[in-house]
């Protein structure tokens, strides 16, 4: 089945054009992680791993080599920023697109996130529709490497 047929006019639901995008989700809050997974699926992507902390997120990323990682900044084990930097520094994961989610939305915090190598930064609380739009936007983008 051609996934593009299910997303006429770039709607929120349905898979991303050009094949299913594999997504890693990491957030220490179970409810939020589940919500992010729902949004990712609404954006037409596949959740390949959902990690409850930074360490698990890094392991999953190395194992699954996802196209996109949606990472919470404030996590035990390793923070989203540290995971972000680790992914960027390893050749196998350097091209992974990264979306950071954080309760801290000050300009400094956004700047730190982008400096760590994130492609986009979404402050919490986010709207599901906003997250879906953001995931779709990153999903259709060509990988960096």
């Amino acid at each position, binding site marked *: 089945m051609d996934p593009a047929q299910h997303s006429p006019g770039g709607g929120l639901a349905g898979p991303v054009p050009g094949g299913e995008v594999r997504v890693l989700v990491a957030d220490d809050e179970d*409810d939020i992680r589940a*919500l992010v997974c729902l949004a990712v699926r609404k954006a037409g992507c596949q959740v390949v791993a959902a990690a409850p902390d930074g360490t698990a997120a890094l392991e999953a990323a190395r194992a699954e080599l996802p196209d996109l990682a949606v990472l919470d900044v404030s996590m035990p084990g390793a923070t989203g920023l540290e995971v972000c930097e680790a992914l960027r520094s390893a050749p196998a994961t350097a091209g992974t697109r990264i979306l950071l989610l954080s309760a801290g939305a000050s300009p*400094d915090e956004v700047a730190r996130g982008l400096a760590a190598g994130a492609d986009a930064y979404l402050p919490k609380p986010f*709207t*599901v*529709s906003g997250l879906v739009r953001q995931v779709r936007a990153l999903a259709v983008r060509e990988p960096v490497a």
Partner: protein
Amino acid sequence: MSLAVLDRRQDAGDPWIRRLTEPAGRPAAVHGPLLCTVLHTAAALLLLTGALPVVDRGLVLAGLAAASAATGVAWTARRSRSVVGSLAVPAAHLGAVALLHAGTGSATTLFLLVGPLWALATLPDRRGVLVAVLGTTAVLAAPALAGPPTADDLPGALLLGPLAVAVGTAAVHGSSRRLAAQSHRIAQLQREQAALLAQVQSRADELDTASRILAARAQTMTSVIDAVTEQSIIGTDRDGTIRVWNPGAEKMLGVPRPDVVRTRSILDFHLPEELAAAAEDRGCGTGLEALVHAARQHGSDVRDWTYVAADGSHRTVSVAITPRSDDRGVHAGWNFVGTDMTEARATERLKDQFVSLISHELRTPLSSILGYLELVMDDEDQPLTDEQRQYLSTVERNAQRLLRLVGDLLFTAQVESGRFTLQPADVDLAGVVRAAEETARVAAASAGVQIVVDVPEDGLVVAGDAVRLGQACDNLVSNAVKFTPAGGRIDLALRRGWRTPDGAVVDHRSQDAVPVALLSVADTGMGIPAGEQGQMFTRFFRTSNAQRNAVPGVGLGLTITKAITTAHGGTLDLVSAEGVGTTFTMALPVAG
């Protein structure tokens, strides 16, 4: 002291000098009566004993009577300085001697001449000499006048006697006058000396008073500085060597005064790496220069520095640094007045951490609530009933309200801790005003309040943070909606204005005024009581009207709006009258 000795010496005064300085007429007036009394008493005794012959009893009695009368007058008027009296009394005595000479016919009576002649010779008046000569002549001639001549040598005696008296009294008179002139001069010198001594004494008293005042002032200063035990007061030379070290410094840094004054530098109590970092930041020299650079530039400087105490512990101290001048106004060193802020800063950090933690912990569940609500409300497969939608909308509205409150608290904490930064860009305030109206439109409509927007067609651009300016404008409009009863009106206006150097905002351009954008929000609401208007920008302050009318809010909106305005270099003012309405005007600087 030595001057008191001088003073006493002056008081002691030599009696001889004092006698010399008496008025010249006084010795005659005092000694005249006594001498004459003694002489005439002697003459009376000589007459009584028959040693002196009585030729004419009448004349002798008249002579004694005249002598007694003259002596009586002399005693009575001995204090008088009258020249006539001084002449008349000796002249009367001379008359008495003439009568006695005539009455006895004896030259022995001539010893009585000594008294009046002495008195006349020592008179300051030259007429005394004349009276003496005439009187002596009369005395010598008296026996001849009273009876037949008793001697052949009378003409010679009449010639030589007065001549001798004239020469003698003239000599005595001259000496007396010279003596009087000298004594007068001595008296004058003595007066001058007394005046000089008085002057010296007065100057010495002034010096004494001044030194007492200075000592008292120094004592006051020392006692004030010593009374400060919770703040460190450290004074140094220009090179940083410590000269003043109060008990507060002893307590804060654990080093007693004798161990530091003149021997140690202020730099011994600072962190070298902190001074090096400050030097790099300010582009100035290291060491003391880094410490006092800002105070040298601006006259004073207050900031946090780390002091290193004797036990090696670090204290965060808010230090006010000012230059110190000596009595000639020449720069002499530096003053460092420090307040230990170690605990306070730790508390502030803890509060910041707490607020960040709380805000994170509150945002996370709110994210879940709002996210899942959105999923339920937007689920096209299972549409909600109208009633369910209404309930969930209420949940969502309250979750949003809680979220705004968390945001406001976090923002207030950021402003207080100075961690509030702006993302400057060109912002069209017309767009900000329109957006604020759009945000408030639903709430205004449901409250029955009309919002009227009046912004320039071509917009009005300022340099600022669009998000924060939007937040500030939203706060003002949302307040206006909350405090305006149904049927009221809110005017959102944007226009150009000028701010004068004294801070007043005017509509017309004037000299030295800078252009500003004036964003005003005017309502026809309940107004703010005059007594509460000054507190409007204090955090958590709520007006009595707000509390009475149960208007929702926590009292952070205006605090935040004011902070945002101030951070943009602008001002926020309000004009309000109870029952009439309130106008908030934000003046933000614009370029050009």
